[in-house]
């Protein structure tokens, strides 16, 4: 049941002592990075005397991470780095996160710990339906599953008929999938003649990368006749594997031997008492290439009070409720409205007003961007409009990593740009 019993069940006193030791090591390492050499200049050389003193250190924001691009947060020599992962786009700067060989090994181990805790064993067959590449979701689970010793199918997302074929013919038992894609995929079974409950050996799904409700989890469990476990992570910490549900399914254990959690009031920055909802702030305790101190995740949640019957002592967070900033999560891909705005404004044929609408279509997120055409360059032909719509689609896809539905609209149909126009309408209700 435990992948590393000592780590997972150590007493709170022991864990707190361990965290303080690791925190001070992290601060020492972090000072080697240009950003923290300045940001931690006032922190005493000998480190902190207690975990409570961490609240006196400055936060690290995503904006700082961006302005530190490319190497402002790197705390090791460049040749120690074996990999990077990155957010989408080139607007502003992407958030790039570096890993040493040691970081990768720790990350793999964390994923193996998560998977093992839900009952995955070496004789399972694991089909990884998350995106591979710069995104951490696919590769993170891939290496974690291999570390555990599970046969891994690196199929990636999409191509639903092939997914179903593999599920059936390789008798896949464990999947890693976006919750929205799990619901969408189910609707495609009838045309393949495969009955997910009779013809498959599926028993476990890891769902993550996008916020979802308890109702969605229940639905996935019922439709497929399996157990679904929520997975939480962010590339800045490593990727998936930061917090994970155990068999009890009552919140996500945040692996406190790797990350130190705080929950703050997003507007005042004040640390909130346990149980209160706010923004999750994380400090890495083991990361070598890019230690982060008090990183503001932007994710809204709370630390759940009480112990978990599973015996693990690491505190649990509630499922993610939303964002403290305007970041959008479209089918698991994170993006900011400003990326869309900057891309649109660089195209002379379109006007200044635009509107982003997000809705569900057959369980998947659809991102619709309405843009006005610029009358000054409108020549009055249909072909130029078709070319324009295709160009806007292509440029947005290149920037945000999501293919939008682009609609050219008449100027009067969009809100005017004076004042603070509402640019994003999210019609998805998380359910």
């Amino acid at each position, binding site marked *: 049941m435990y992948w590393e019993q000592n780590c997972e069940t150590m007493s709170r006193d022991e864990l707190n002592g361990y965290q303080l030791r690791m925190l001070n090591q992290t601060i020492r390492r972090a000072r080697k990075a240009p950003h923290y050499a300045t940001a931690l200049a006032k922190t005493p050389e000998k480190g902190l005397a207690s975990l409570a003193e961490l609240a006196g250190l400055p936060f690290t924001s995503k904006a700082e991470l961006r302005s530190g691009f490319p190497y402002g947060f790197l705390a090791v020599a460049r040749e120690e780095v074996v990999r990077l992962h990155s957010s989408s786009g080139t607007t502003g700067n992407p958030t790039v996160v570096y890993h040493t060989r040691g970081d990768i090994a720790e990350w793999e181990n964390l994923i193996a710990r998560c998977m093992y805790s839900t009952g995955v064993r070496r004789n399972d067959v694991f089909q990884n339906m998350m995106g591979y590449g710069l995104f951490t979701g696919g590769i993170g689970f891939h290496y974690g599953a291999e570390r555990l010793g599970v046969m891994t199918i690196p199929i990636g997302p999409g191509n639903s008929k092939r997914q179903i074929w593999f599920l059936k013919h390789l008798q896949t038992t464990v999947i890693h999938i976006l919750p929205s894609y799990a619901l969408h995929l189910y609707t495609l079974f009838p045309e393949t003649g495969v009955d997910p409950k009779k013809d498959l050996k599926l028993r476990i799904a890891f769902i993550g990368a996008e916020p979802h409700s308890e109702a969605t989890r229940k639905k996935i469990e019922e439709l497929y006749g399996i157990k679904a476990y929520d997975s939480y992570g962010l590339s800045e910490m490593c990727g998936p594997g930061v917090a994970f549900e155990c068999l009890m399914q009552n919140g996500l254990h945040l692996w406190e031997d790797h990350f130190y959690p705080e929950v703050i009031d997003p507007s005042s920055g004040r640390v909130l008492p346990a149980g209160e909802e706010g923004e999750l702030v994380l400090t890495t305790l083991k990361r070598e290439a890019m230690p982060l101190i008090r990183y503001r995740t932007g994710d809204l949640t709370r630390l759940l009070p009480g112990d978990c019957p599973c015996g693990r002592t690491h505190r649990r967070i509630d499922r993610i409720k939303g964002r403290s900033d305007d970041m959008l999560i479209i089918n698991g891909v994170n993006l900011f409205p400003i990326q869309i705005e900057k891309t649109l404004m660089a195209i002379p044929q379109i006007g200044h007003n635009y509107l982003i609408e997000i809705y569900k279509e057959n369980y998947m997120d659809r991102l619709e961007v309405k843009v006005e055409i610029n009358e000054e360059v*409108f020549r*009055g*032909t249909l072909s130029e*409009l078709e070319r324009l719509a295709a160009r806007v689609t292509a440029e947005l896809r290149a920037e945000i990593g999501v293919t939008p539905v682009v*609609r*050219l609209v*008449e*100027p009067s*149909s969009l809100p005017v740009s004076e004042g603070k126009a509402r640019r994003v309408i999210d019609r998805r209700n998380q359910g």
Partner: protein
Amino acid sequence: MGVQLAVFLENRPGKLESITKALAEAGVNIRGIAMASEGEFGVLKILADDPEKALRVLREHHCTVSRRTVVVAMIEDRPGGLHELLATLAAENINIEDCYGIALEEGHRAAVVLDVERFPEAEAVLRSHGLRLLSDRELTSL
């Protein structure tokens, strides 16, 4: 030559009607009209008796309008009438981007609206082949 207005339109019920309404209320007479659409949006081409007034009215209604100069050529309303005109342009390798016809008197006269590349040259070619081209004023009084 004539002035054609091209209006960007979302393809939704009532869109076209809102434009004809605005023009009717302003007393603008539509002499020719054509529509090209692609599903979600389209371009409405209007030949009005008073193009400048029509342009003003449409802009007041927040329409995205483009003003283009087009050739309006008279042809006879009989088999081969249009073909003779197009043959002269083809012989000079002049490409037509857009084209639609308006019947003026059934079985007698018709006009063709041509959006062509190499505009002044196209006009000259047609004139040299004896075709009658209409001006804005003539369009109004037809």
